[in-house]
C-alpha cells in the first residue's frame, strides 16, 4: 500500500486531542472546533537496496558529471567532505547513510589506486564532532582506517593556513573555503538532505566556508529576503550560496556531489504514536503515550534528555543521486518535496506548534532558549512554500518549556549573547553591531577550534534565522516556557494553550482561524 499523502484535518467535536511536543515531554491539547491540523505525508517507501542504489548513482551521475570511477586516478588528491552531526534528526540507526556512501566512494578510490584521501566533516561554524559521533556517522571501519592516521579532519574555519580565499562573486561576496578541499583534484561531498534548505551549493559554500564568507548570507537582511529559506527559488540565502558555488566551480574546484534523502520514519517503535494520527491510535499507541509521557514527566530533566538524545531514528534512504551539484540537487529537492509537501489552502491567524527536544544544533546537548526560538521561528515557521502558514501580523504559539539553561561547553557564546545582547535588543537588524566582536573573540575561537563549541558568531545566526518570522508575526507566545527566558527572547508566555489563545485574540481579533503544524513527521506546507 502506498503511503498516504499529507492532509489538513478540520477539527470538530469528535476530533481527539492533538499531540504537541513540549521539549522533552509531549502533551495532548484539545484544539478549538474549526481549527486545522496539518499532517505530513506518511513515510515514503525506502530504497530496497541502498548500497546498490548508491553504487548506481555513482556510476550514473546527473548533469554533465562523469561517473565517479572515471574521475578517479592514481596519485590524485581526493577529499571526501560529509555533513556533520546536525543531520539527520534524530541521529539515525546504524549504518548511517554517510557511512554507506563514504564506504562506496572509498572502495572506488581504492580500486583506482588513490592513496591521498582525506575525510572532512563539513562543520562550517558548528561544533566539532566527538569520536563517538564520528564513528556513528562513518562507521568504525572508516573511522579506524582514517582517524589514527590524521586523515579524518574536522573543518576548521579559523585555521589561517587551512583556508583559501578564492576571490569574490559578481556580487562582491568573499568565497573562502577549506584549503584541502579547494586544492584537491576532486572534492566529493556526501550530503543528507533532511529538509529542503540542505544541500546543493550550500553544502560546500557553507559547510566548508569561513566566517568571512558566511557573513555574506548568514545575516538578518538575507534571511528577511528568504521566503522561505526552505524554498531555494525564493531564498536569498540560496541565491548567495549558488553564486558562491558557481564561483567555486569557476575557480577550478571540481565537486562531485552525492545527495541522499530520507523518509520521515522518525521514531522507533516505543515512540511510534508520535507520528500516527491521533484518531488512529491503537490501544498500544495510547498505552505507549501514557507510559512514555508519564515516565518522562517523572524522570529528572537531565536523565530525560539523555534518554531522548539516545533515540536512534529508523530513517531510511529514499533516494540517492550524484554528479553535478545543481542537477543533483534538483532531483533531491523533488524527493524532499515528495516526502514533506502538504497542500494547504490559505493562511491562518494563529499558528501553533509543539517543539521537540532536538534541533540541528543541540544534538547530545541542551536546547537553550535561543535554539528554541530558532527551531520555532527559524525552522518550523519557514517550512512553507508560497506564503507563510500564518498571516502577516498573526500569532505563533510555541509549546516548549524553554528552560533558561545552556551547555557551557557547546554553546559558550550563546550564554553571552543571551545575557549581553538580547538584554539590549531582540531586533535581528540591530544585533549586527555586536556580531564582529563575537565572531573574532579569541576565547570563542579557541573553544571552537580545540573543544566542542559552536563558533562565537553562531547565536547571531540563530537569531538571524528568526528574522523573517519576527518581521512577519504580530506576537510569539510560548506555552509553558520559563518566564524570564521567554521574556528575554521578546516573546510572551502563557501557562496553558487556552491562555495563549486568549492572548492571541488580543492581537489578531476575535474568532481567529487556527492552524496546527503537526510534528513529527517533518512537513512543509505548500500554501496557496
Amino acid at each position, binding site marked *: 500500500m502506498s503511503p498516504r499523502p499529507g492532509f489538513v484535518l478540520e477539527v470538530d467535536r469528535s476530533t481527539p486531542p492533538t499531540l504537541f511536543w513540549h521539549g522533552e515531554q509531549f502533551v495532548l491539547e484539545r484544539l478549538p472546533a474549526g481549527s486545522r491540523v496539518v499532517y505530513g505525508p506518511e513515510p515514503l517507501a525506502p530504497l530496497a537496496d541502498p548500497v546498490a542504489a548508491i553504487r548506481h548513482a555513482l556510476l550514473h551521475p546527473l548533469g554533465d558529471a562523469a561517473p565517479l570511477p572515471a574521475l578517479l586516478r592514481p596519485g590524485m588528491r581526493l577529499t571526501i567532505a560529509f555533513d556533520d552531526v546536525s543531520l539527520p534528526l534524530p541521529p539515525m540507526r546504524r549504518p548511517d547513510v554517510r557511512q554507506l556512501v563514504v564506504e562506496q566512494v572509498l572502495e572506488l578510490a581504492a580500486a583506482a589506486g588513490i592513496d591521498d584521501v582525506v575525510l572532512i566533516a563539513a562543520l562550517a561554524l558548528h561544533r566539532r564532532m566527538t569520536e563517538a559521533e564520528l564513528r556513528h556517522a562513518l562507521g568504525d571501519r572508516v573511522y579506524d582506517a582514517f582517524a589514527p592516521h590524521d586523515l579524518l579532519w574536522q573543518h576548521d574555519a579559523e585555521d589561517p593556513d587551512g583556508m583559501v580565499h578564492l576571490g569574490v562573486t559578481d556580487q562582491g561576496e568573499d568565497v573562502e573555503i577549506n584549503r584541502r578541499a579547494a586544492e584537491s583534484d576532486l572534492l566529493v561531498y556526501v550530503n543528507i538532505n533532511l529538509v529542503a534548505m540542505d544541500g546543493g551549493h550550500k553544502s560546500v559554500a557553507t559547510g566548508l566556508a569561513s566566517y568571512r564568507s558566511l557573513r555574506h548570507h548568514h545575516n538578518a537582511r538575507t534571511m528577511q529576503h528568504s521566503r522561505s529559506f526552505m524554498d531555494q527559488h525564493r531564498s536569498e540565502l540560496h541565491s548567495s550560496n549558488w553564486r558562491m558555488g558557481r564561483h567555486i566551480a569557476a575557480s577550478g574546484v571540481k565537486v562531485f556531489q552525492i545527495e541522499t534523502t530520507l523518509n520521515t520514519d522518525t521514531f522507533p517503535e516505543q515512540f511510534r504514536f508520535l507520528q500516527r494520527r491521533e484518531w488512529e491510535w491503537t490501544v498500544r499507541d495510547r498505552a505507549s503515550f501514557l507510559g512514555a509521557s508519564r515516565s518522562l514527566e517523572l524522570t529528572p530533566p537531565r536523565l530525560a534528555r539523555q534518554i531522548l538524545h539516545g533515540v536512534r531514528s529508523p530513517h531510511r534512504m529514499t533516494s540517492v543521486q550524484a554528479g553535478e551539484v545543481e542537477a543533483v540537487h534538483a532531483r533531491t529537492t523533488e524527493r524532499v518535496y515528495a516526502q514533506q509537501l502538504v497542500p494547504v489552502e490559505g493562511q491562518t491567524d494563529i499558528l501553533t506548534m509543539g517543539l521537540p527536544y532536538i534541533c540541528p544544533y543541540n544534538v547530545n546537548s541542551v536546547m537553550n532558549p535561543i535554539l528554541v526560538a530558532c527551531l520555532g521561528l527559524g525552522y518550523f515557521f519557514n517550512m512553507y512554500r508560497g506564503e507563510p502558514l500564518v498571516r502577516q501580523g498573526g500569532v505563533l504559539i510555541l509549546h516548549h518549556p524553554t528552560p533558561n539553561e545552556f551547555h557551557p561547553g557547546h554553546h559558550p557564546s550563546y550564554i*553571552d549573547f543571551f545575557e*549581553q545582547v538580547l538584554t539590549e535588543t531582540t531586533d535581528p537588524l540591530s544585533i549586527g553591531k555586536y556580531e564582529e566582536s*563575537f565572531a573574532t*573573540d*579569541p*576565547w570563542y575561537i579557541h573553544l571552537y577550534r580545540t573543544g566542542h563549541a559552536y563558533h562565537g558568531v553562531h547565536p547571531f545566526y540563530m537569531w538571524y534565522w528568526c528574522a523573517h518570522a519576527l518581521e512577519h508575526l504580530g506576537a510569539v507566545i510560548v506555552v509553558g516556557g520559563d518566564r524570564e527566558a521567554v521574556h528575554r527572547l521578546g516573546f510572551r508566555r502563557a501557562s496553558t494553550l487556552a491562555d495563549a489563545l486568549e492572548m492571541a485574540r488580543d492581537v489578531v481579533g476575535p474568532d481567529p482561524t487556527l492552524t496546527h503544524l503537526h510534528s513529527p513527521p517533518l512537513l512543509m506546507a505548500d500554501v496557496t
Partner: protein
Amino acid sequence: MKALVFERNLPRFAASRVAAMVAGSGRGAPVGPLRLTDVDPPVLPGPDWYRVRPVLAGICGSDLATVDGKSSRYFEELVSFPFVPGHEVVGVVEEGGGGPDAPAAGTRVVVEPVIGCIPRGITPPCDACAEGRTGGCERVAYGHLSPGLQIGYCADTGGGWSTAGLVAHRSQLYEVPDDLSDDDAVMIEPTACAVHAALDAEVDPGDVVAVLGAGTLGLATIAALATLTTPATLVAGAKHPQQRRLAASLGADEVVTPSQLPRAVRRRSRSLANAGQLTGGADVVVDCVGSADSLRECLAMVRPRGRIVLVGMPGQVHVDLAPLWHREVALTGAYAYGAETVDGTVRRTFEIAMDVVREHKLGRLVSARYPIERYEEALAHAGAAGRRGAVKIVFDLRARPPRADAASGPRARRDRRGPTRRTPKGPPS
C-alpha cells in the same frame, strides 16, 4: 531633642550581629547598642566650629555594618563612644564661627565628615592633611577631640542622625549651591567617595573597567567614572533590576547580573579563560561590595598587572591571594576624599562631587525618607534596599508639624514598600 546614640556595649553588639545574621542586614538595631534618646546639642569645640542642624542624613553601608555588629575591630580605637552616627549630612548652619568668609546662620551646607588635623587643632598637620588628603589623616585619634575617623563616629561632634545637630569645623563645611536639592546634597558625601575611587583607579583611555556592586556607592562610582575618566568600556555588575536600569542610565556601557560580570569582562577584554580565571581581564576592577566573594571575583576578572580598587568597606575576609601575587595585581583601597588633581588642577573632592551629582542628578537615588523615630524601619529598609528597588535611604530631620498624618509623598509612593505607605504612623516625609 532626639538622637540615635551608639554605645559601647559588647553583649548588645553581639546580639545585633546575630540578629542581622538571622533576619538580614539592617535588622540588628532593635537588639543592638543603638538607641533613640534625648540628647543635648554638642558643645562647640572651638572658635572655628559651627553648629549644623541636619536636614537629611543618609544611611551608609558602613553605618549598617556598625548597627549590625559587623564592622571590623580595626576601627575600635578610631572611634569614641557614645557616638551619634550619620556622616552623610546636608544641614543648615545654626551658630558659631565668625569672620568675613564664615557661613552665615541659615546657610545650607554639606559636611565633609573626616576629622583631620585641622579640626583637631594639630599643628603642624600630618603629611596627608598638609597635602589636603584629609581622608588619609594619620591623627584621627589625636588632638583636642576624642578619637573619631569622622563626624558620626566621634563622641564630641555628634552626627547626622540627630535633631540636636552636630558640630563641624569651618574646613568641613561646603555651601550647597541653590540648584542642588536636599536630595542631591545628601548624595554629595557618598559621591565624593566615588569620585576619589574613580580618580584613584587610574583609568587610562581605552581601558576596560568593571564595577562590582550597584548600591549607592557602586552607582555613584559608575557616575564618577563616566564623568571623570574615559574607559573604552565600563561594565557593571548589578544584582537587582532597578540597579541595572540606574547603572545604565549613569553611564555603564554594559550592565549584567553579578554572576555574568566575569563573562562580560572576558568578552570585553577579549581574554581567554582558565578554570574561572581570565587570562587577561579588566584593566581596572572597582569593588563596591567589599566581601570575600567580591574580592575573589575581582581577582578572577582583573588582568595581570591590573588594578583593583576596594571601595566597599571590607571586614575580615578569607581570600586566596595567589593570583594577586602571580599576576602582580595592585590592590588598593579608596577611602573617603580630600583633594584631587584633575587635568592638572587641584580641587576638593567635595567640589568635584557636586559637579557629578549635578550632572547625573544623583538626588534621584534617594528612595525613601524616614523620621528618626522610625529608625528601625529605616535601617531595615536600607539593609534590603536593593531587593526592595531602593537605593539611598535617609533620615529626614526637618521639624515637622505636630499632625501625625500619614500622607505619602511621591517618593514614598514610588517605593511600594516604602515607609509611609506600609506603616503609616509617622508624619509626612
